[in-house]
């Protein structure tokens, strides 16, 4: 498929093309609850969320990880993705607009192929990092 990142022409410190998602909606949180099986009412019931000190329902952390996974599988062939780690740093609300960004942290030839490690971030519309992490790609030869 066209559009994958060409790591051969990129260097450490280079950014991958950012991916900006549509604003998160409450319906999306309900859909994600059904899809993933994470039915914690913190994500679907404003009253429960407010009782926990939130201003309303918050997005499932793994949904934001899913946004990051979407970005990664647009950047690299899925079979090259070897590891994906995230740290959940802040809560995300309906209406927030998440942009997924990544920067190449390391490029190294190994006996299996070119190993690339990237830092990855999910930021909201105010530039606040909600989820950060890293992923490893192995570009096999041939």
């Amino acid at each position: 498929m066209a559009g994958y990142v060409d790591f051969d022409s990129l260097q450490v410190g280079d950014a991958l093309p950012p991916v900006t998602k549509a604003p998160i909606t409450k319906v999306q949180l309900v859909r994600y609850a059904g899809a993933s099986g994470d039915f914690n009412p913190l994500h679907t019931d404003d009253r429960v969320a407010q009782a926990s000190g939130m201003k309303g329902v918050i997005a499932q952390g793994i949904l934001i990880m899913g946004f990051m996974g979407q970005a990664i599988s647009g950047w690299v062939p899925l079979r090259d993705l070897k590891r994906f780690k995230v740290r959940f740093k802040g809560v995300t609300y309906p209406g927030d607009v998440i942009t997924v960004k990544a920067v190449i942290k390391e490029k190294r030839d190994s006996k299996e192929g070119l190993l690339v490690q990237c830092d990855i971030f999910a930021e909201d519309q105010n530039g606040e990092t909600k989820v950060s992490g890293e992923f490893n790609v192995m570009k096999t030869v041939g």
Partner: protein
Amino acid sequence: MADLSKQGQGLPPFTVEVERVKIRELVNAIGDTNPLFLEKEAALSERYYDIPCPPTFITLAFQEFTGAYFKAFEALGVSLQNVLHGEETYEYLGEIYPGDLLTCHMVFKSIVEKQTKSGSMFLITLRTRVTNQRSEEVLKATSLIIERMA
């Protein structure tokens, strides 16, 4: 409060079938329009056998369909109200397709108590080895769960 003596124990292996419609539901909920996850022809054209599982699909195996997280928290004596998800790591060792029957071996890898200004917390690492119906190891998942004690 997490039971430190449970470190090294785990859940009995549990299985989950990879259902095509669940892949589609997850991808649609994320809002991912990548044809790789929606059209078998697109997947075949990239030399996959079928639609491959998207990177975060395995989360399904730990939620209500299997109840694995709940069972782990219960076994550990962790109260659901105090739980935060700190980190999640997936190591991809093989491809996962619709129809695959995944067996998950979850171990309570470590339980560490930490003191903070606002009280104590437990850092619980759940490590799950995922094998398919051919006993091939296809994924390793590591969840860092934080239990905050008020």
